[in-house]
């Protein structure tokens, strides 16, 4: 039995630009996905990173103000640092110094290994070690720190 034809110019054949439709939909979805990724990446909260940076700077300054750095004693400095830095922060400190008039550099390190899979705040502070009466400079030192969220 012959199929009844619609009384149209081209019979019952319709035009469907399926490829155009598929391409257009694909383009729109790709654009939406790209904008989604862009927005997500650029609206991340960075205040926690800034807090890390400020904590490191504050701790090393407080150590300098309390003359703890002047002791150049690893155990004493480590006790002070662990008393200040929050438990959920990881840290590493490198204390280096050289005696006034000497070329020899001495140093020690405190803390854990610096991770390479997360944000690490870092900084450096220079300090002077003076004699008891603060008339002479005995050592020139630097304290470098790395701080991260555990």
């Amino acid at each position, binding site marked *: 039995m012959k199929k009844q034809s619609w009384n*149209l*110019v*081209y019979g019952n054949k*319709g*035009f*469907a630009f399926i490829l155009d*439709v598929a391409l257009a*939909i694909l383009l*729109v979805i790709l654009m*939406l996905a790209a*904008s*989604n990724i862009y*927005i997500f990446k650029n*609206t991340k*909260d*960075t*205040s926690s990173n*800034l*807090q890390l940076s*400020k*904590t490191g700077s*504050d*701790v090393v*300054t*407080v150590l300098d*103000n*309390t003359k703890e750095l002047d002791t150049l004693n690893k155990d004493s400095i480590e006790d002070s640092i662990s*008393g*200040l830095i929050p438990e959920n922060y990881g840290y590493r400190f490198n204390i280096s110094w050289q005696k006034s008039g000497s070329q020899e550099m001495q140093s020690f390190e405190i803390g854990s290994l610096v991770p390479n899979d997360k944000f690490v705040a870092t900084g450096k502070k220079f300090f002077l070690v003076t004699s008891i009466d603060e008339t002479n400079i005995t050592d020139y030192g630097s304290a470098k720190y790395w701080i991260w969220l555990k």
Partner: protein
Amino acid sequence: MKHRKAQINVFDFILASSISVIILVLVASTFFLYERKINEFVLYNDLSTKTFQVSDVLIKSEGVPSNWNSTNVNIVGLASEDRVINVDKLNNFIDLSQPEIKDKMATNYNVYFNLTNITGKSIASIGNPPAGIRSVVIKRYVMYKNEEAIMEFGLWE
């Protein structure tokens, strides 16, 4: 005049229209969602930046004038030297009212300030802990009376 007949496959037309409407709705809702998200991000960023900047001024600067008190202060600073809180300046700061503090800090946000010793015992406090829709509170390590102390500073609305 010869009449030209148009031809439309109704099913195709309905399908195409439906797809177009769905796509339009998706794009419009994405636009409005991201606009809200970006606005919120900008507001939070502004709050966060101001909180860190003001806390820096408080603990690193002597203020303006350097011997300021509650009657002549232009810029509030609590430090006698970097990260060392001055007792007199802290007392002057506590004497200021919340509107005065907001004016001197050039902010419309509510101010929260809490200085404690290293064990958490409160030394001085201004304002209420944040209870609004948006807040940033940070901790800074300082010296007060030759002892280590923690300054909590926050802005909120």
